[in-house]
């Protein structure tokens, strides 16, 4: 089968040359670190600085005046109530859903997963808009029962925060459950423990760090959220810290920036404490990272209970992920707000107005799309470069850089927006290049905020590629661009694209940061919907939001199809 054939004639000889990269590499790293510090860390310090300066002198006056106001404490109390309540709701929904999806045999799990993700990829202010229509006076619930719960209340905020963010807890814990080795449960059962005992004594204790981590993540997201308390709380006079800060800036009082800075320090401190706690918990649960995921079900129910459970899950998913959006879509077709849903009242007028008559919408769409594309491009290149440095793991500089770029994402959006204003209004004191008030501040803010998402996405993608793949390329003589183009990029594609898509979606539908940084001419999609809703043009906001939801769904499906194609075509998986 093998022909004996000599392949050993003369070899090509050349004196080896040293890599010239070693000298410059260190300097590049130091330069990168400096850049990272300037963009990601300095703004936070400028916020701190502003909160303790009064007319150019050190002062605690702002803190004192804020401290004395009852409005501050009402906002803090509201914040704590809403975040605590919604975190508990997210935890209960997310953990039980994760446990069922990880362990119980059910039909149609793929579709269920898709519906669980839906509230996650659709921005929370659109979900809120949908629920407002669903439970509103002309919504299906009111017309069926003659009564509907009032969403413009503390309970409404808690409910919507909980429902919007339980997918986070789910995503975080479902793999924790799957990674608990089946043998551990089997060992407990052969030692005489019943199902209940196994759950209480083995599964839950092992999953606890993961559950706690998921809970903290939900807590941080709820704390950070601006859309839901803005849509529901502002009309009902319920202020939480994020909306209170927004109102300070929007109010334009004499000391509004300084007051907002003090409140931001307060909110930022709570958020960073939470992030630190989460980091500690994650470190503890890291052991499970090496264990293989086991996606096979462990519990088989009798046919009847299984059907009941499936029906229950579909009912829940339908109510939380589908029906509100249908209600929103339906409302967007009604000529005038308040008319009943009948064929003679339906038209595409709202769509016509939003997309063809109102010039703001067109420019907002254009702004959001190009901002998303640019942000994605910058994050993709620079974020992947940072992830690669981190992956090579030979530099503590890279570790510091990763820590620094996490800060803007850990801070609530309102706080970051303020940081951006203070940092870029006069990047060097005394010099105002006019960034604040133009669209460029949005681009800077988006890159600063979402950079870490791409770093994490690229890093995860890199971890999945065996180091020997790259080593083999180097031994074969490929380096630099050839190595990336021929070997690394094809292998990393879905991971990089997933991270980039996430950044794109986040920017496209961003509201929190934009609501504080936009100016006339630089409106974004989120800002326009928010302004429609605040001005009472509910039919317009629902029309715009419906189109956005459809676009997001189309994008998600396209990505899924593309990554399947990649699996088949590139990785040759059957």
């Amino acid at each position, binding site marked *: 089968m093998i022909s004996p054939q000599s*392949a050993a004639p003369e070899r090509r000889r050349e004196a080896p040359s040293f890599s010239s990269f070693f000298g410059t590499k260190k300097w590049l790293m130091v330069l990168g670190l400096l850049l990272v510090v300037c963009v990601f860390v300095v703004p936070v310090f400028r916020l701190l600085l502003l909160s303790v300066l009064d007319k150019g002198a050190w002062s605690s006056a702002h803190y004192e005046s804020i401290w004395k106001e009852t409005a501050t404490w009402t906002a803090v109390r509201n914040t704590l109530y809403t975040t605590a309540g919604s975190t508990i709701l997210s935890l209960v929904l997310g953990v039980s859903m994760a446990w069922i999806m990880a362990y119980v045999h059910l039909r149609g799990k793929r579709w269920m997963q898709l519906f669980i993700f839906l509230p996650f990829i659709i921005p929370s202010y659109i979900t809120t808009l949908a629920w407002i229509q669903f439970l509103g006076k002309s919504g299906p619930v009111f017309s069926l029962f003659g009564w509907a719960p009032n969403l413009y209340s503390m309970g409404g905020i808690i409910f919507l925060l909980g429902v919007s963010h339980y997918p986070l807890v789910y995503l975080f814990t479902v793999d924790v459950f799957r990674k608990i080795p089946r043998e551990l449960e089997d060992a407990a059962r052969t030692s005489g423990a019943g199902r209940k005992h196994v759950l209480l004594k083995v599964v839950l204790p092992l999953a606890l760090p993961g559950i706690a981590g998921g809970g903290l993540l939900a807590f941080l997201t709820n704390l950070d959220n601006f859309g839901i308390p803005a849509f529901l709380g502002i009309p009902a006079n319920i202020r939480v810290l994020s909306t209170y800060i927004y109102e300070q800036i929007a109010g334009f009082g004499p000391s509004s920036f300084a007051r907002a800075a003090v409140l931001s320090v307060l909110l930022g401190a709570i958020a960073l404490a939470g992030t630190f706690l989460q980091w500690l918990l994650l470190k503890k649960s890291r052991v499970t990272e090496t264990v293989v995921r086991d996606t096979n079900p462990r519990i088989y129910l009798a046919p009847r209970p299984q059907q009941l459970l499936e029906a229950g899950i579909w009912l829940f998913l339908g109510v939380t992920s589908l029906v509100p959006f249908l209600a929103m879509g339906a409302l967007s077709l009604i000529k005038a707000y308040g008319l009943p849903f009948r064929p003679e009242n339906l038209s595409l007028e709202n769509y016509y107005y939003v997309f063809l008559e109102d010039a703001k919408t067109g420019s907002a769409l254009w702004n959001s799309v190009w901002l998303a594309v640019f942000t994605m491009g910058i994050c993709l290149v620079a974020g992947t470069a940072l992830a690669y440095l981190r992956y090579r793991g030979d530099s503590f500089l890279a570790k510091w850089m990763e820590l620094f770029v996490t800060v803007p994402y850990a801070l609530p959006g309102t706080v970051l927006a303020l940081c951006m204003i203070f940092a870029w209004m006069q990047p060097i004191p005394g010099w105002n290049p006019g960034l604040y008030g133009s669209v460029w501040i949005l681009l800077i803010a988006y890159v600063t905020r979402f950079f870490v998402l791409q770093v994490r996405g690229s890093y995860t993608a890199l971890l999945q590629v065996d180091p020997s793949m790259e080593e083999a390329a180097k031994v074969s003589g490929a380096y630099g661009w050839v190595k990336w183009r021929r070997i690394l990029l094809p292998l990393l594609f879905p991971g990089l694209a997933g991270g980039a898509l996430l950044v794109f979606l986040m920017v496209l539908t961003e509201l929190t940061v934009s609501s504080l940084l936009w100016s006339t001419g630089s409106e974004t999609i989120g800002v326009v919907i928010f302004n429609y809703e605040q001005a009472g043009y509910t039919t317009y906001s629902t029309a715009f939001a419906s189109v956005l939801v459809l676009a997001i769904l189309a994008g998600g499906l396209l990505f899924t199809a593309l990554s399947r194609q990649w699996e088949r075509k590139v990785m040759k998986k059957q």
Partner: protein
Amino acid sequence: MIEVNNVTKQYGSFTALHEMDLSIRKGEFTAILGPSGCGKTTFLKLLAGFMKPSSGDIHIDGFLAASKKRLVPPEKRNIGMVFQSFALWPHMTVYEHVAFPLRHHHHTRDEWKQDIGARAQQVLKLVGLEQLFDRYPAELSGGQKQRVALARAIAPLPDVLLMDEPLSALDIELRVEMRNEIQRIHRETHASVVYVTHDQGEALAMADKIVVMNHGKIEQIGSPEAVYTRPETAFVASFVGKCNMVKGKWEQDFFIPNEFPWERWPDIGVTESLKEEGLCPVRPEQWKLAGEKEEGLKGTVLTVQYQGKEIHYTVEVENENWTVHQSVFQPKYGIGDTVSLSVKAEPSQKAASL
């Protein structure tokens, strides 16, 4: 020609390699043998240029290739490498794997660069894969993947072929078959091979020279036969030859075991360093097992394992457990039997070791 001078590699406070010295001649097949964590993979990565040594230097063909300050990166060295996990690129066909180094390797000959297809075909024929040129790694068996990895490594005809436990991912039968394959490719390419393994069978079967390593240090360098029959340290004796280490005194040409001062054992090829330590390594097959009434050390059989052509016994002698391999044609013993042990005098082995 590779010269490794006084190379040390540290990871933080852990020293993976201690002041290693080694020279590898052109065209030589060198096996680096040792248990996991002995530093052999670290050594291979230093040879490939994936990292720099903490001190010392490596010269290849008289040129400085690596020191604490300078490093010729792997893509500029004249090397090929076969990885433990094969490291095949899932998105490339067999042909593309072979063509890749032909296109990018710095030392590919110009006429091959101009006609990559012809050279690729030649290489694929050499490893017996010319029919499978358009397959992807996912469509290949373990042995075929191994051949692709080999073909990729040898395609540009590198001076040095580095192999990192290339057979450990294959099943036992395939391993023996691939040993022949690798030997043949070594013969036909005339490349220097540095072959890292923890399997002493592979090292003994293929290498011209074996370097036994433990705890980041070289224990012994020698031909397979020398390493097997004349171990210089207790570690080499037990790791390569699976020897029973008997403690005692050496007097001129005979050995007196501590527990049995009346015994006199002949010198069966023991090196001076072991004699100084007062050790006599006895390989399992060097024992002669006889019935209770015969002469020899008395012991009790603890375990019996039937292996087909041999029977492996564990015999307890004065609180020590010794391993004894006997041919199935010898008398058989059961658990609990009292047996007599003595050392076979084999003049042929003594001669061979010199």
